[in-house]
């Protein structure tokens, strides 16, 4: 009896507490909305949005619905996260490895890089790049060409765009290359297991990946042309580049700040992972007769990756969430487009903020679920 009371009383109290809080909030919201004449509902999503977005990956204009505006914001968020994740991974690996270098200068510059960029709030870094650093760039008419064809100006970064012909043939060839690499890999591991033979798998796969798409150019009728950005005079003092792709300065500032900031955390993960593999492993592998390359590939990396990947994924998630700071410099991401402009216009605070939060929550929980599954899979099975 005593035990049952001990078990159930706290649980019932907890449920009551949660129900009371939610009930209290709902009743308040109901009365507030009644008083102000707002009705709850998601009908507004199909209404015409009638606002413009500066930068969008899909066709969008003011006559489209709020749902499409939401999609535009979401895609912009994913775009900036994707680019930043790639850059911060590359930087993070370089810095993380540099921190373990035997060279005193390299080791310390890497350590200072980490200490410097991770101890300054991300928002300040974004502001610094956007308001201070990128504003010091030249006007379009005075810009120098980088690599001959791209222009870094105060109005954005202009790069050539690619004009494809028969793109699908090219993509099929790439797909075919990937499939044949997978088949080759299976064959190679079978050969190794049964006959103990090694084939230069890496060389073959690189060759496949290069040759097959190249063949599509020769025989498949695929052609690629570059459309270069060209300077155009709008009025007496105002110039602009036309053609090509223009990356707005907001995007560049955001990518710079996010990738520099997150790369410090990735670098720490990489360092911890490499340090986490004990010296004995390396020595044991070498004493079995593996070459240094094989030691790295077959012994060190698999163990280090097991330590590196989970915290790094966490950092990627943080980066995606941090990309919402875009709203502070008016990059049209999910928060600015939806929780900012759309909310102003419709006044549907509860619906819009919940949708925005749920979207981020879905992204996070999906990645977390995949991570858990992956962790279970790579876990060392101990007896």
């Amino acid at each position, binding site marked *: 009896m005593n035990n049952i009371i001990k078990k159930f009383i706290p649980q019932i109290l907890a449920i009551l507490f949660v129900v009371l809080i939610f009930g209290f909030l709902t009743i308040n919201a109901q009365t507030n909305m009644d008083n102000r004449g707002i009705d709850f509902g998601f009908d507004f999503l199909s209404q015409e949005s009638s606002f413009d977005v500066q930068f969008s990956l899909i066709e969008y204009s003011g006559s489209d619905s709020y749902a499409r505006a939401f999609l535009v914001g979401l895609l912009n968020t994913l775009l900036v996260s994707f680019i930043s994740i790639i850059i911060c991974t590359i930087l993070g690996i370089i810095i993380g490895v540099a921190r373990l270098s*035997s060279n005193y200068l390299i080791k310390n*510059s890497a350590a200072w890089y980490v200490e410097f960029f991770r101890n300054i709030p991300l*928002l300040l*870094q974004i502001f*610094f790049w956007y308001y201070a650093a990128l504003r010091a760039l030249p006007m379009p008419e005075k810009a120098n060409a980088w690599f001959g064809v791209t222009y870094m100006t105060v109005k954005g970064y202009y790069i050539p765009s690619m004009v494809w012909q028969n793109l699908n043939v090219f993509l099929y060839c790439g797909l075919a290359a990937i499939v044949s690499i997978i088949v080759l890999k299976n064959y190679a591991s079978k050969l190794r297991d049964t006959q103990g033979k090694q084939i230069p798998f890496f060389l073959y796969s690189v060759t496949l990946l290069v040759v097959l798409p190249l063949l599509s150019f020769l025989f498949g009728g695929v052609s690629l042309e570059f459309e270069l950005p060209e300077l155009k005079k709008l009025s007496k003092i105002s110039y602009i580049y036309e053609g090509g792709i223009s990356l707005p300065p907001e995007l560049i500032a955001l990518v710079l700040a996010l990738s520099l900031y997150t790369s410090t955390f990735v670098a720490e993960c990489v360092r911890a992972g490499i340090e986490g593999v004990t010296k004995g492993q390396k020595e044991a592998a070498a004493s079995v007769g593996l070459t240094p390359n094989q030691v790295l590939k077959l012994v060190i990396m698999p163990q280090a990756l097991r330590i590196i990947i989970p915290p790094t994924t966490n950092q990627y998630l943080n980066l995606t969430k941090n990309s919402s700071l875009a709203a502070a410099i008016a990059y049209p991401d999910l928060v600015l487009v939806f929780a900012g402009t759309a909310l102003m216009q419709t006044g549907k*605070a509860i619906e819009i903020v919940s949708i925005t939060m749920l979207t*981020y929550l879905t992204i996070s*929980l999906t990645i977390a679920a995949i991570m858990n599954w992956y962790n279970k899979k790579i876990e060392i099975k101990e007896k």
Partner: protein
Amino acid sequence: MQILNFLKPNRDNIKNYSIIGSFLVLVSFIDVISNAFFKINITSFLPGSLTNLFPLILGFIGLNMMRIDYSGNKNLDLLNKNINTNNFNALLTLLILFSIIKALPQSLSWMILDATISGDSKDACTGTGACWTYIKVWFRRFMYGMYPNEFHWRINTAFILVIALGFVGYFMKENLKKYLALYYVIIYPIIAYLVIYYLISGGSFGLQWVETGAWGGLSLTFIVSFFCLIFCFPLGMIFALGRRSNLPVIKYISICYIEFWRGVPLITVLFMSSVMFPMFLPEDFFMDKLVRVIIAITLFEAAYCAEVIRGGLQSLPRGQYDAAKSLGMGYWKMHIFVILPQALKLVIPGIANTFLALVKDTPLIFVVGLAELAGMLALAKTNPKWLGFAMEGYIFASIVFWIICYAMSKYSYNLEAKYKTER
């Protein structure tokens, strides 16, 4: 054999090689330095880009010649071991040193030599360097926001009082030490709140009322992060214990709470607190914007805190729980006297990281219209009398935040070392 010995630097020809090598390195450095500081190009006779590459090639050859294993010369060995182990390292060493030398004169002249700090208006800044006058004039605004100038002593006194009260724990008598946790978790926040409310807000004891809209600058950053810090820790502890509870309802409520807050960005939480939260309050009930923001950040950070503490709880061996139970301790007694003291020691670095993240997140309150340091900078930047000094402002703010965060992380290393127990 003789020729081979002669071509490859080794102990026999150490004298010749080290002298020639260091001479070449010296020449390369002289070239770079004269180029960077005095704008003299001593290698202008070389064609094209070779002029720029010349010091690199020269230094590289020099370092290669100096690379002698076990030379017997202490300094040379130290040099080779640290910055000159192989060709790749030597190249990187040179690149790093040369780029530092090249960047030094420009940044020095911008930040110090050509910079202006005298005067008190924009007209004083005529040089090509930085305009620190801007920071000097706006300094009080950056620190205290729009808080009236003559009352700044109130903020200072409040901070000194709160910090002093925080140190009381160190000087407590031995027989009072057992109430230390009680003091920090319950009494201290209440006293600190009262001090800040009565001193900074004013309104009684003959102090003039200053509304929270006027608070701002770095002091607001401190106030927000201080309150979030002391509130999010106990809350996080509760949810960490909840997540490890045997009672399914409590466990799942805690899991939902933690996963929800960890899954959303802080900026949406702040949006929620500013536009959505007022809808959920009773009609005639008014809650200050600052209080709403502090509640939002506290709830948000408590979830992160909970996960860190849970990590500590999980890493304790089962034996500790069993031993405590076998002594007849109940749930609360066991946790307060046996589990938590050990677990909290283990999670000091994690907690410090969470607090650091909290301090770095506070500038975000700028988004909902509270003008702390980043907000004041945005305000100052658009002031028509002071246009065009964004760079100085952001560099100043970055330095301030960097010092705070760096000091905090160093302090956490110290704490970690202090409380480390052999296991």
